[in-house]
């Protein structure tokens, strides 16, 4: 088990998330795909930290920040999705093309 294993896994998670974010229609599913991408990045950060590519703790600290920002992002995005559903009756990202409430 070398660094390459974790690198390929993180890249695969990121790219699966990218596919989901581009191909899915529901705003909630797009959000879940973005979570997948963030997790792929986190796997890479922690792997680089564990294998000592950079100073050990840096990758871990940045991964903690990524988890924090992801939590904030999910709360805010879900509030927007709820509001959108109430005013439009749909969370299909194809139909939501106006910034006006």
């Amino acid at each position, binding site marked *: *088990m*070398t*660094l*390459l*294993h*974790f690198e*390929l*896994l993180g*890249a*695969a998670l*990121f*790219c*699966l998330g*990218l*596919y*989901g974010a*581009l*191909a*899915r*229609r*529901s705003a*909630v*599913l797009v*959000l*879940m795909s973005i*979570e*997948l991408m963030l*997790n792929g990045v*986190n796997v890479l950060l*922690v792997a680089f930290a*564990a*294998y000592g*590519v950079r100073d*050990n*703790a840096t990758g*871990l*600290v940045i*991964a*903690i*920040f990524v*988890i*924090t*920002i*992801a*939590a*904030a*992002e*999910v*709360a805010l995005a*879900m*509030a*927007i*999705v*709820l*509001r959108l*559903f*109430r*005013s439009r009756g749909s*969370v299909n990202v194809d139909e939501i093309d106006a910034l006006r*409430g």
Partner: protein
Amino acid sequence: MALAAFYVLALVTLGGAIGVVTVRNIIHAALFLLVTLGGVAGFFALLYAEFLALAQVLIYSGAVVIVILFALMLTRRGEVELMDEHRRWPVAAAVSFGLFAVMAAAFIADAARYQADVRSSVSLDALGAVLFERWAAPFEIASLVLLVALIGAIVIARSGGRDEG
């Protein structure tokens, strides 16, 4: 042993991720996301990042998936919606596969420099010291961001706004 654990976890994680991006039932997609996030926590444990494994289980598998499930249940009418793929999904698949190919090529080209299987761990004490000394200002800013985002979420989601309907 660790390699076997890696492959089992990789199977679970990537299987769950494929489920998230392909399955048509939204509730099932959220449950697949739970599987994937659990698998990632397993990878953190394999990489000796036990604090992150814990945080992953608590924050992602706990809080984030629950929030997503709540949002799913509040934004559907009656039946569980089945969402089709966008009609341009082959383009999305090509773009993401192309990106994966580029990243994999870069990682494989660089692999010779990092052959050693020596994973080092950072003790919880050391991690805390680094977080509160060298990264103290970003840490405080992150907490502020979290606070502002949560207050914003409450304001946005609050019912009874004038522009309703």
